[in-house]
């Protein structure tokens, strides 16, 4: 029975999961955007909970960051994060989860493959488009250079896509009732 209370609890749970993934030591890159496990949480929220719940879950997460809780990787938080050059990525998080969830809901084939595709499009393409756009808007820098910096993050993000696919695939077998993106 999927009640409103179940929805609410799951939305909060995945927001907490993203916060906890921020505690896994991140690789600091020289230009300030760390490689973190947090975007894995964003992909998972979308792929597991579906578009609406996944998007709301990550929106809740960035809302708590805005309220001043130090939940971003490296203990960052507060309103300053939303004025910094990497703000586009933070604003992009809920959108990425929403798109990942939306694609997961549409692709009705094997959940491992479907979640891989969904998290690649949502968690990499959508997130990067928003992140790069934010970077460009805030620094007036030529779009080309922005993109060249971002390329260094692709390998790490591909690992996260693979992890999302493995986790969602296993979840579909062991706990199909929890894969709300497929209900």
């Amino acid at each position: 029975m999927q009640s409103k209370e179940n929805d609410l609890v799951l939305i909060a749970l995945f927001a907490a999961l993203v916060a906890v993934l921020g505690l896994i030591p991140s690789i600091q890159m020289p230009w300030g955007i760390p490689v973190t496990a947090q975007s894995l949480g964003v992909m998972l929220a979308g792929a597991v909970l579906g578009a609406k719940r996944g998007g709301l879950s990550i929106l809740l997460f960035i809302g708590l960051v805005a309220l001043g809780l130090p939940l971003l990787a490296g203990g960052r938080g507060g309103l300053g994060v939303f004025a910094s050059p990497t703000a586009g990525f933070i604003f992009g998080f809920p959108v990425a989860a929403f798109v990942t969830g939306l694609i997961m809901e549409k692709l009705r084939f094997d959940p491992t493959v479907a979640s891989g595709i969904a998290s690649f499009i949502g968690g990499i393409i959508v997130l990067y488009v928003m992140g790069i756009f934010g970077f460009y808007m805030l620094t007036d820098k030529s779009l080309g250079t922005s993109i060249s910096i971002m390329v260094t993050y692709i390998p790490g993000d591909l690992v996260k896509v693979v992890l999302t696919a493995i986790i969602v695939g296993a979840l579909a077998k062991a706990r199909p009732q929890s894969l709300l993106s497929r209900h």
Partner: protein
Amino acid sequence: MLALTSDIPTPLHKWSAGLKLALMSGAIVTLFWLKSPIYLALAAVLTSGLYLSFSVYFARIGLSMMRPLRFLLAFILIWHVVTGDAQTGIAIVLRLSTAVALANLVTLTTRLDDLIDVTYRMMSPLSFLGVSPKPLALAIALVVRFVPVLLTRANQMQLAFKARSTKFPTFYIILPLIMSVLDDADHVATALRAKGGLDGAYKP
């Protein structure tokens, strides 16, 4: 879990959260409107002065919150110097660091409860659309509840993993961790229903 609010009392702690947010938004919009490095430098000096007027220690906390930005700002500056547009580079660095510092100032001087209250008030015009702040209030409490639960469970699983393996467990435990907290989520939802859930009279 602690918010980033500073315990060092400043006159700004007494100002209403709504006013501070409005002033900060106005200031940041103005910063993005200003193009001249001279005005931007003035804004940066004023902001630093504001931090320093509260105490050197407070200013140091403010500075430490800017640390993650230092390489990025240096990179932007060097890039512009190399491409022969140092003036734009300086303007961008001043604008971004001042904007971030002002936003952090609101975070440092406003209690979490007050910011949550402002959020509810900002949501209240939406109530005619059927959006109620109650789920939000519950959701915030639930996140605060789940973070320590997830950490404890992750630690237990790391121990259980280490007891039977020589590998480092980080990624191996994410799936079992998610499975176990999904069970937990079912129980919490039942407990929430037992206390009236979203139909209860509780108001934030």
